[in-house]
């Protein structure tokens, strides 16, 4: 399963777990705490091409909408359908069953540019 330790992070609080050329994407525990009370996730479409840094998903909480950026480039090959019925799963298990979508990476080297847990945590204090 995905854990904080076996993932990499973006400065915009997404996490990525890589397995072969498939990147699973979610949001960090810090991000779900900040967003709080998630009530709807507008997921990308399967088959959609995304590039690293591109806005491709919206997480709605009661108070605001948060844009989620693709951490890596590629094709969206799967989305977490469970979130349609239970969006608060992202709050409860941000690093597990609350994952958002999977990207078949076109440039796996992009993964290497992402932050490890220690480097990500260092950004949070700022």
């Amino acid at each position, binding site marked *: 399963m995905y854990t904080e330790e076996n993932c990499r992070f973006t400065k915009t609080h997404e996490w990525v777990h890589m397995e072969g050329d498939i990147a699973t994407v979610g949001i960090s525990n810090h991000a779900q705490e900040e967003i709080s*009370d998630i*009530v709807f996730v*507008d997921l990308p479409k399967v088959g959609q091409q995304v590039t690293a840094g591109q806005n491709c998903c*919206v997480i*709605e*909480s*009661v*108070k605001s*909408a948060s844009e989620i950026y693709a951490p890596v480039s590629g094709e969206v090959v799967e989305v977490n359908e469970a979130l349609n019925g239970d969006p608060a799963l992202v709050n409860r298990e941000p690093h597990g069953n609350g994952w958002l979508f999977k990207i078949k990476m076109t440039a796996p080297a992009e993964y290497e540019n992402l932050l490890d847990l220690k480097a990500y945590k260092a950004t949070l204090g700022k």
Partner: protein
Amino acid sequence: MNQTDLQKTPLCAACEKAGGKMVDFHGWLLPVQFEGIIAEHKAVREAAGMFDVSHMGQIFVEGKDAWPFLQYVNCNNIKNEPGAGVYSHILTEKGTIIDDAISFCLTPEKFLVVVNAACVAEDFAWFEKQAQKFDVTVRNESAQWAMIAVQGPQALEQVAKLLPQAKDIARFHIVEIELFGAKGYLTRTGYTGEDGVEIMLPNAQIEALWNALLAQGVKPCGLGARDVLRLEAGYLLNGADADQTRTPYEASCGWVVKLAKENFVGKDALAAQKAQGVKEKLTGFVLKSPGVPRAGCKVFAGAEEKGVLTSGTFSPLFKGIAVGYLAADAAVPGTEVEIEIHGRRAKAEVVKTPFYKNRV
């Protein structure tokens, strides 16, 4: 704006201590939430919650002409019976909305007007200008008073433990109180659609009240829950749903306009608009597909853009709800429309407001 530049209420430290996530709200540092908006919403709908509303303004009007003056600056009929309060709009000469406020009669020659925080300075200046023709003194005491709103089905019994008068006070009425050695006011009013009261005390005494209510189990609630609750209850948010470009008729608040009154600021303009009818009016929407409508989203009927949202949120009771100004021809309950959210059209239906109607 830096947080240190923001105005703080006397409850700021108490809110932070209770876990409040503090944000800039029109220049005030106030809690947007404590435990979470959904939990706080539930507390107010099912038990009791409290809000720091110390940022709101208190303007006292005193003198022989206090009542005629308030009749003149309000479009609704203000009552001159001691204890009675009336919700009304304060208008420009064009009939557009400066503020919405409640005027309470303390004595036939002394009234308390509770106004929105963001409007205190403008309301006060407007009152002073209009007061020149009347034998009245207008005093802005907003900085001296703090205020807590206690709302929910258990609000009255919770407050009655400290102030037994809470059980006897009638809706939209005010009584003078004494608590923690200071004089204050208790009103049976609120902004949530639930029964409840609002308690005004001098700044120095308010934290004792907050702590007492907290110890009794009243849940601290923030601006986030307050916005969901007020929108469900169909209450205007001045500055969003109403401003100086909109009249009470356009804001679907025609009931606050008493054209039969002899005279009031904005009367001629409103009489003319009533005869002509409005082009747009504030309209309620319920989303029929997933998503959360927000202020600024466009509303379409067929291919045509027919309006724009001024408030929208996720309601735990009704899912996506919103209000916005819609062309009058489309503002008919049952009309199917589409709301553009993040570039995607979501199906919605025009509905009558309030979305939520319960005890008050």
